[in-house]
């Protein structure tokens, strides 16, 4: 944080303007690609669901995958006790400590769970899960947190619609930088 006092930015504007007027010639050495060729790498998921792949999974399908591939680090049923964070916890945030953040009390979008599992998990074998398995694990974690019903399937349609409790609790720090 900081306190501000007014200053003149005229000089900065002048420099920025003259820089944008002088476009240098560039080498044009980039190799053209089409989006189909990028496909396997393109794993960005946006909170409105853009980028979510085909496929589907239920909490019941996720449970055995979680037990086999996730519980060693995240604890049985995601309740913690291992080397990695608990994924299923029920408590409110009191005070400013980040150690209290959980999926249920902090994460604003359920799409982030799918995105992170698909790109980074399991820790020792990222990108080894099928999209159906990622959907199933996402559904399992959401259901264990009672954020969806135990029979709800997660897919490109349903996942972005999951209402996360803390979604509207964020303040953009410097809106003028966006």
């Amino acid at each position, binding site marked *: *944080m*900081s*306190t*501000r*006092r*007014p*200053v003149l930015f005229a000089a900065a504007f002048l420099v920025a303007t003259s820089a944008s007027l002088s*476009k*240098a010639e*560039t*080498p*044009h*050495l*980039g*190799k*053209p*690609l*089409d*989006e189909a060729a*990028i496909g396997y*790498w*393109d*794993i*960005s*998921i*946006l*909170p*409105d669901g*853009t980028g979510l792949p085909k496929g589907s999974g239920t909490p019941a399908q996720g449970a055995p995958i979680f037990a086999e591939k996730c519980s060693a*680090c995240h604890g049985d049923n995601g309740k913690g006790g291992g*080397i*990695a964070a608990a994924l299923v916890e029920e408590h409110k*945030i009191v*005070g*400013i*400590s*980040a*150690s*209290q*953040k959980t999926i249920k009390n*902090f*994460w*604003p*979008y359920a799409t*982030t769970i799918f*995105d*992170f599992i698909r*790109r*980074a998990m399991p*820790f*020792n074998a*990222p990108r080894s899960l099928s999209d159906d398995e990622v959907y199933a694990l996402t559904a399992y974690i959401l259901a264990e947190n009672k954020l969806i019903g135990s029979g709800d399937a997660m897919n490109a349609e349903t996942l972005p619609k999951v209402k996360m409790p803390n979604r509207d*609790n*964020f*303040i*953009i*720090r*410097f809106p003028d*930088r*966006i």
Partner: protein
Amino acid sequence: MDKSADRNVRNQDLPVVAGNGLIDRRALLGRGVMLAGAMGACVASSAAGAEPLTDPPWSLEIGEATPPYQTPSKFETKVVRTLSNPNNEPRNSHARTPHHLLQGTTTPNGLHFTINHGGIPVIDPDQHRLVIHGLVKQPLEFSLETLSRYPQVSRVTFLECGGNSAPMFSPQPMQETVQALHGLVSCAEWTGVKLSTLLEETGVDPAAKWMVAEGADSPHLSRSVPVKKALDDAMIALYQNGERLMPGNGYPMRLLLPGYEGNMNVKFLRRIKLVEQPAMSMYESRTYSQILPDGKAYRFYFLQEVKSFITNPSHGMALKGPGLYEISGIAYSGTGRIEKVMVSADGGKSWAQAALQEPVLSKAFTRFRLPWRWDGGPATLQSRAWDEAGNVQPTRAEFVAVRGELTKPPPILSFPNQHYNSITSWAVGTSGEVKHVYA
């Protein structure tokens, strides 16, 4: 000049300008003869009876062979980073810069801080690719070789983890070195290609407001960055202090966003996708969102705000008796240049302006120095920085009033909150011992 300063100036040649013996910074600049004279007066009495000089063994034999890549003297083995995960357990790995053992403004590459979330990938530079796609006219793929043919730019900039200085959220001052408290910031000269140059070639759809940057490491670490920053001063860094990037700093290429939170400067960069909305990746929507005292949380903090800290003397050191010392430290701001740094030796009651080492560069470490005559009594050293945009480093009380503090001291390696930038205080005891305090 207050009364305590007036007391200290007696029988001294040097102009004391603030309480507890702070001396005018101009004593460092162009008044060297006077300074030397004053110091000489203090030590001249011990010249009689000194041992005659002789040649040590290394002056009488041939030295060692010259190595192809030189490393520091074997007598400097203590100048190393501290590691949070030396055995590469399946979790994050942090390495902190030993600021108290360094000088100047450039962090040597081997001592630059690093944080990696899945080990350090071993990337074959010939196979590495950077793809730019999404809301562009033409998606393009670049190799390291092709990027090396683009116009190169160099800039000196600091990089700081959003969680640097987090131990200072503790309600009591943690008895830790400047390395443990502030070691997750470093400064280097980075060379590479301006991102705007590459985006000129791909073309950018006006609907694109964000870009999602992604690494080739095992977590495929991903952060959303406003296109506004991409077109401003973002670059694809290929070199660090003149040589290729260190593996832990993103070899063979990384995103560099001067002044912005370290985690956004995606390492091992392999993909940039232009999009309409931020991805709300885990690192931005969870890890780098900061809980506030009212239960809400900041999102998209981005900026590493104006900060300074004294590196010498600092916690864990011991002054060897009263006399002349140089107070020295680092100041920086993600907003621009450092305008001035004030130093106090009496816990903020009085202040003296420090000398800034030239050149003072935007969004880069600025070294400040001030001569100080320690009279052997208790002293509390502080530094406070201002940047050219008018931002002022807050006192701890000002900071805590807005951002809060913890209810109990956190584990030293944890990140209980982020973007901490208040004044740091070091208390010098009558024994010369230096400790971290809140003042």
